[in-house]
């Protein structure tokens, strides 16, 4: 099948890419899915005002159609995954001088023999369906656009369309009566279109294009009420931080383009994801270029998915309407970064050499973000800010999972997280809708009696988020912890590497998550109602999506029951992993940790401990204190952290991470004087935010300096100066014209004699 050309210097071989062009109708033209919402965007933009329901019905119809389409694509993919034996496409490459990496050598041969024997335990190969068309040709390089439908793509299609549909329905009630109702729906469908385009994009260029379109829509939607200055500020900040990340993406894509160019004969390079991944995972691209490319792409992920030091825009993005926060800043857009890592996993796996090492940049960033997000979520007054920081923390979880090689666990967590986080956000939206404020401490409390539906869905969502069994959160978080390679009795053996440090961080965050969710539930739904006015339950168009999401939050977990789970027949285990994880040339060979009972139990115990600790503090002590003082308190006046020095020290230690980071940004913080709770919050907002603003302002000042000093004075000055010199010298020369005829005669004669003298002497 592969003719190994004899001894030519650049011998041409071909490597299987794990993609095919046949596949049933749905898989073939998945490009319809992004097209329909795009058309609806145009429709709403032009005819929205004249439609009876202000364009929202056009949006919902489009999303419904697309949701059905993606379900069909899902089923088509499942069938394709199980029984497809069509012909596989391979890419001819120059392999002479690069030489095979040591331990990957045998994998190479295996590939070549084409019978893909023991491709990991997931059975025979899953071939992604690719359908490309040439977009344009410039400078001998052919840019193509197309769709690549495989496991993760189908999963994401399902999640995005579902959540987007629910958010559409939800916002018909939430945003009703807004001045720019049509405008809102137009941008919602544009957002869905670009997100869907991103999900099924076949090459990195298309990924880049949709990546920035998604950024644009988030800019427009966050700044929906752009009358207030801080809304437009938040939108601007979101877009600029994304742009910073995009710079990384731009450079990463360029490096990958040209790196793959060296390998493919007579072409400058190729953008296609399948080729780049296959080349990377079969060790044909040099490790250093992959490392640089991975770091650049990592920058993009950190800005888009709100990882540690580029996350400041996400909490501010809560200024946008809540359905936007639910859709964009919980379920879809922020996950784009994680999806990009999953999509280009070959590059990251090789770049950060995830298999076999105990620490790498991605895992570290992920772990650190989970911890930081969790701590910050603790001290928020605004309910949406709590959920925003919890999103940051969960995203950190996913990135950490990818960092440790637990690919399926990360994708599964993404899948479940989308549901319960959207449910929580929409729940908080419905609460805020009735209370007309987001501030838990001053305007909420005791809403369980008044808003039963929202209360119950919120409870389900927070339990799922905390990760108590049998809810979805438990299964996905447990998978990740197992994936980190376990530690002693915790099991989770033969993972990709012994990431014990990540395991510890994961455990602590699980506890913290449980704690702050309990605090949030108590402050909003228990105790007495602190706000004014009379809150009431929201209408059906809000509660029904809440219930759908709550149900999904409960049952989504069963999709990926771990291997050894005897309660259920073998065929039902690991369904999610089986269908979603690609087994093909373009996916690296990752090893799957064996699930262990002991780890599951310990993690549940930790979560329960977290809940009980918070429960005891709030439901017992604060309840008693508020009964004694008669007004509903939100925290004990002389709380644990203020009394006990050790607790205060522990807390400041957590905060100190900031100082580490703080020192890293180089600006010394103000002296610590408010109670610890205020300090943590203000330290995050003030310092990090201000660094971003000061960077902006210094740029402006440098601009001013540059403009006034250099541009006007020196460069422009030089031009005017030359003008002035010529006119001044003109003035002097004018003086010799004295008007006296005899001086003229003298000049004439003097000149004649001098010239004569000169010429006689010299010539």
């Amino acid at each position, binding site marked *: 099948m592969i003719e190994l050309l004899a001894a030519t210097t650049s011998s041409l071989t071909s490597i299987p890419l794990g993609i095919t062009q046949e596949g049933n109708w749905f898989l073939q033209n998945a490009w319809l899915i992004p097209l329909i919402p795009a058309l609806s965007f145009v429709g709403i933009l032009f005819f929205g005002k004249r439609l009876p329901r202000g364009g929202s019905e056009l949006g919902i119809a489009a999303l419904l159609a697309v949701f059905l389409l993606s379900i069909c694509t899902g089923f088509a993919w499942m069938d394709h995954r199980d029984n497809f034996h069509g012909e596989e496409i391979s890419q001819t490459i120059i392999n002479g001088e690069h030489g095979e990496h040591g331990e990957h050598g045998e994998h190479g041969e295996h590939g070549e023999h084409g019978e893909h024997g023991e491709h990991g335990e997931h059975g025979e190969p899953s071939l992604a369906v690719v359908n490309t068309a040439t977009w344009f040709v410039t400078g001998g390089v052919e840019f193509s656009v197309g769709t690549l439908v495989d496991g993760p793509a189908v999963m994401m299609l399902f999640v995005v369309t579902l959540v987007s549909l629910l958010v559409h329905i939800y916002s018909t009630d939430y945003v009703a009566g807004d001045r720019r109702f049509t405008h809102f729906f137009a941008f919602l469908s544009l957002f869905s279109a670009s997100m869907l385009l991103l999900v099924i994009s076949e090459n990195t260029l298309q990924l880049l294009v949709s990546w920035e379109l998604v950024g644009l829509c988030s800019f427009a939607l966050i700044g929906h009420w752009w009358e207030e200055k801080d809304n437009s500020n938040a939108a601007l900040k979101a877009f600029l931080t994304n742009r910073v990340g995009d710079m990384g993406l731009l450079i990463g894509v360029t490096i990958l383009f040209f790196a793959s160019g060296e390998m493919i004969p007579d072409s400058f390079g190729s953008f296609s994801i399948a080729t780049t991944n296959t080349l990377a995972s079969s060790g044909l691209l040099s490790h250093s270029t992959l490392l640089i490319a991975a770091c650049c792409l990592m920058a993009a992920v950190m800005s888009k998915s709100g990882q540690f030091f580029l996350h400041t825009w996400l909490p501010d993005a809560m200024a946008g309407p809540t359905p936007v926060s639910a859709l964009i800043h919980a379920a879809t857009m922020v996950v784009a970064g994680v999806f990009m890592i999953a999509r280009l996993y070959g590059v990251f796996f090789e770049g950060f050499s995830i298999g076999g090492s105990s620490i790498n940049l991605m895992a570290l960033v992920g772990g650190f973000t989970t911890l930081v997000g969790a701590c910050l979520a603790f001290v928020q007054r605004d309910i949406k800010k709590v959920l925003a920081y919890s999103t940051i923390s969960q995203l950190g979880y996913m990135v950490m999972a990818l960092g440790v090689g637990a690919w399926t666990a990360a994708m599964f967590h993404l899948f479940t997280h989308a549901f319960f986080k959207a449910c929580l956000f929409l729940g908080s939206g419905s609460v805020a809708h009735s209370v007309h404020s987001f501030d838990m401490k001053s305007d909420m409390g005791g809403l369980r009696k008044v808003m039963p539906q929202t209360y119950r869905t919120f409870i389900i969502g927070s339990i799922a988020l905390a990760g108590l069994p049998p809810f979805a959160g438990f299964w996905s978080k447990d998978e990740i912890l197992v994936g980190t390679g376990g530690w002693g009795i915790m099991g989770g053996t033969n993972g990709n590497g012994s990431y014990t440090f990540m395991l510890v961080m994961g455990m602590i965050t699980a506890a913290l998550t449980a704690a702050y969710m309990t605090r949030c539930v108590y402050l909003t739904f228990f105790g007495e109602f602190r706000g004014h006015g009379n809150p009431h339950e929201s209408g059906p168009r809000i509660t029904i999506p809440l219930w759908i999401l709550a149900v999904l939050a409960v049952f989504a977990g069963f999709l990926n029951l771990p291997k050894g789970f005897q309660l259920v027949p073998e065929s039902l285990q690991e369904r999610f992993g089986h269908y979603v994880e690609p087994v093909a040339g373009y996916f690296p060979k990752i090893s799957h940790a064996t699930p262990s009972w002991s780890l599951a139990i310990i993690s549940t115990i930790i979560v329960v401990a977290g809940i009980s600790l918070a429960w005891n503090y709030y439901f017992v002590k604060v309840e008693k204190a508020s009964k004694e003082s008669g007004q509903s308190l939100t925290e004990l006046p002389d709380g644990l952290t203020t009394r006990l020095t050790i607790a205060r020290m522990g807390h400041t230690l957590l905060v100190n991470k900031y100082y580490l980071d703080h020192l890293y940004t180089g600006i010394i913080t103000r002296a610590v004087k408010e109670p610890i709770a205020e300090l943590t919050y203000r330290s995050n907002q003030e310092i990090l935010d201000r660094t971003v603003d000061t960077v902006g302002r210094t740029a402006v000042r440098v601009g001013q300096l540059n403009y006034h000093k250099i541009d006007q004075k020196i460069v422009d000055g030089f031009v005017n100066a030359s003008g002035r010199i010529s006119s001044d010298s003109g003035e002097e020369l*004018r003086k010799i*014209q004295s008007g006296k005829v*005899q001086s003229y005669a*003298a000049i004439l*004669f003097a000149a004649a004699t001098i010239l004569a003298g000169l010429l006689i002497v010299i010539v």
Partner: protein
Amino acid sequence: MLLNQFLILSAVLFSIGVYGVVTRRNGVMVLMSIELILNSVNINLVAFAAFREAIPGEVFALFVIAVAAAEVGVGLAMVLLLYRNRRNIDLARIDSMKG
């Protein structure tokens, strides 16, 4: 051998004439100095013509004399005009146009 003396004489005359033109303030004096210069040229021409037995030199001198006459006529008319307008013929004073 004789030629150099003539050349020196004409050079001397020439320089005196030039000095006269440049320094004298009286219009008529300047005209006279110009005549001096022209005559020095004549001497030069005649001397060379004689030395080289070349007739054109003589003819040239004649032409110079004739033209000099015409020039002086015009020059005196100009100076007269100046006197009628300004009541003096001091060349240093006529500098209304300058720069």
